């Protein structure tokens, strides 16, 4: 499980999961070498919308916000370009997660089908001895189907088709973002770490975590949340 640099983990809240969390599912079929770029394109586009500048709190309860820069990224294996936040730390974190997902997809027992999830959550402090709750408020799931292509001509067609598909996905993401549905309200200085990931030095995304599942050939999903289950039982 990859997430922001906070070491403290929180137990998932089953109640919160049902209530406020909106879930969006995107599906893509890509060639093996396109997995990384396709995932990065989608995740970066989502995080572009879910990141703000760094908050600087002043006296009297006011704060000012830093500036978010953007940059264009060209894909090598897809006829596609996307915009991401200019933050090397964020890019590294996403690349690490996507790299693990890609390796897991390639691994044995995998039919080339899997999904990667980006979850935005809020922390809710609980009294001792209970640990903080993680309440997700938005969940993006990208289902990936890896295809194998026979020759170069098919690969060229795949480059273009996947590029067009990703354009559609970006439009879908933007559509969801602009519904202006629930967003956590802006926190006070003491609460900011419960809403935002303040560990990055140049931007401030909402608290997020990335997880993935690989569907093995039996159709059952071997999840990486095994650890999470164990932690759940230990936490209680």
């Amino acid at each position: 499980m990859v997430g922001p640099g906070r070491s403290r983990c929180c137990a998932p809240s089953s109640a919160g999961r049902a209530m406020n969390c909106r879930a969006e599912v995107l599906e893509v079929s890509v060639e093996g070498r396109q997995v990384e770029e396709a995932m990065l394109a989608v995740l970066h586009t989502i995080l572009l919308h879910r990141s703000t500048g760094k908050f600087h709190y002043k006296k009297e309860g006011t704060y000012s916000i830093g500036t978010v820069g953007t940059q264009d990224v060209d894909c090598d294996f897809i006829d596609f370009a996307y915009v991401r936040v200019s933050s090397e730390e964020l890019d590294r974190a996403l690349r690490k997660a996507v790299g693990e997902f890609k390796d897991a997809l390639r691994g044995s027992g995998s039919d080339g089908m899997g999904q990667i999830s980006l979850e935005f959550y809020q922390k809710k402090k609980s009294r001792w001895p209970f640990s903080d709750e993680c309440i997700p408020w938005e969940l993006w799931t990208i289902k990936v189907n890896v295809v194998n292509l026979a020759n170069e001509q098919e690969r060229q067609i795949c480059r273009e088709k996947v590029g067009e598909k990703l354009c559609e996905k970006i439009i879908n993401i933007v559509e969801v973002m602009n519904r202006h549905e629930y967003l956590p309200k802006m926190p006070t200085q003491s609460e900011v770490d419960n809403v935002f990931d303040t560990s990055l030095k140049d931007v401030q995304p909402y608290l997020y975590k990335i997880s993935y599942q690989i569907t093995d050939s039996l159709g059952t999903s071997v999840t990486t949340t095994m650890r999470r289950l164990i932690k759940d039982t230990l936490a209680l």
Partner: protein
Amino acid sequence: MDTDLSSQDRKDLDKFIKFFALKTVQVIVQARLGEKICTRSSSSPTGSDWFNLAIKDIPEVTHEAKKALAGQLPAVGRSMCVEISLKTSEGDSMELEIWCLEMNEKCDKEIKVSYTVYNRLSLLLKSLLAITRVTPAYRLSRKQGHEYVILYRIYFGEVQLSGLGEGFQTVRVGTVGTPVGTITLSCAYRINLAFMSTRQFERTPPIMGIIIDHFVDRPYPSSSPMHPCNYRAGEDNGAVYPSVEDSQEVCTTSFSTSPPSQLSSSRLSYQPAALGVGSADMGYPVLFAGGLNAAHPHQLIGPGKEGGVPPVPSQPTHGTQADQERMCTPLDGVHYSAATPSSSEDTETVSNSSEGKCGSPHDLLETIFIRKVGAFVNKPINQVTMANLDIPFAMFAPKNVELEDNDPMVNPPESPETESPLQGSLHSEGSSGSSTGNTHDDFVMIDFKPAFSKDDILPMDLGTFYREFQNPPQLSSLSIDIGAQSMAEDLDSLPEKLAVHEKNVKEFDAFVETLQ
């Protein structure tokens, strides 16, 4: 609840909408420059980045946008539109996209201006950044250069979508509700690029020639052709681009984290900037070229290097003398009236130099008209080696019949006389020993002289002996007359022979015993 907007909120809202419109134009135009955009994040607020996004301001673009708006804001029936079109080196142009910033009457009275509206406008700009890379014109703009360029035009008023061709598609970037109306940002883009796919715009000049033939319906009548633009910055720096006074207004936003009831204490403070951000380092050289057509869009080709353009004060340079006179008029005064959208079209064509990226269009014209003659045709064959021969492979036919007698293959030279007797004997053996009695023309008859013989006088001499016994008669058993007998007869006679032999078995056995 107080539904009327306070004057401060109203002022803030107007300011937001105005700068949102300007930033929208910047994002769209910069996305069509043909190069990758990169801006840096900054953790400490500089106070000059509207909507907390690092979007650079190209002064010319801001100038054009302000000119188009002329102090007004998008309102119902008055939309701000950015038209992106493509112009080939031949002068043909085609509208690719229309980006519309519209306002409708649906108001959200309860929304907080300085907080929610501002943040949502920021989100909408991020969406615009994402969507501008997704429409087909982005890929076209990344490949612009010699064959075609991408132009932009800003106008205010009614949206004109007729130039997009049939079946254009619309993508909605997003909406933000405000107390005075709902802001909508959308893009209508052409999909009928059938005769102008992105592949055809790769840098292969001969193909361009074929494409030009497909331009049957020209969007602009040929009576008002576009003038070729100068792609290079001129040397003489005449007029400097008029600086825009309030384009770089600083926005220092501070938000309150107090509960909503105390939100009125939050304030936006902005100060007029002495120096705008980016105006010093954003020296895109800009050229004006004259244009007859009222609908002359602005042409933008970004600098060749990303972010490394040396500041060059932009100034008008002219292709022709006649253009120069026309040039002055738009520069001096802005004729724009909001009531008539058609007159808002600018009469100047702005082009950015791209440091060698675009050559003179005339070079291209020469290369366009290369016609392909046909496959494998190099030039007419002037020489024919055997022109008068109708037969195939005539060159391999014997050229002179007379020479045949001299052909060594046909007439071998005479073989020399043998000197040694042994050679002679070998010779005669070959000739006389043949059972068929063939004598080759090449062989010459010589007398037979056996070795060690005295002379041939006596009848029973060695030579005579040799001759007599050279040709002994064949054995009778070996002389099989094949013609008389056939296999079938042999087989038929076999059983009789076997019967005879079986009768004489005892004799054979006795014979065998004597041998043992």
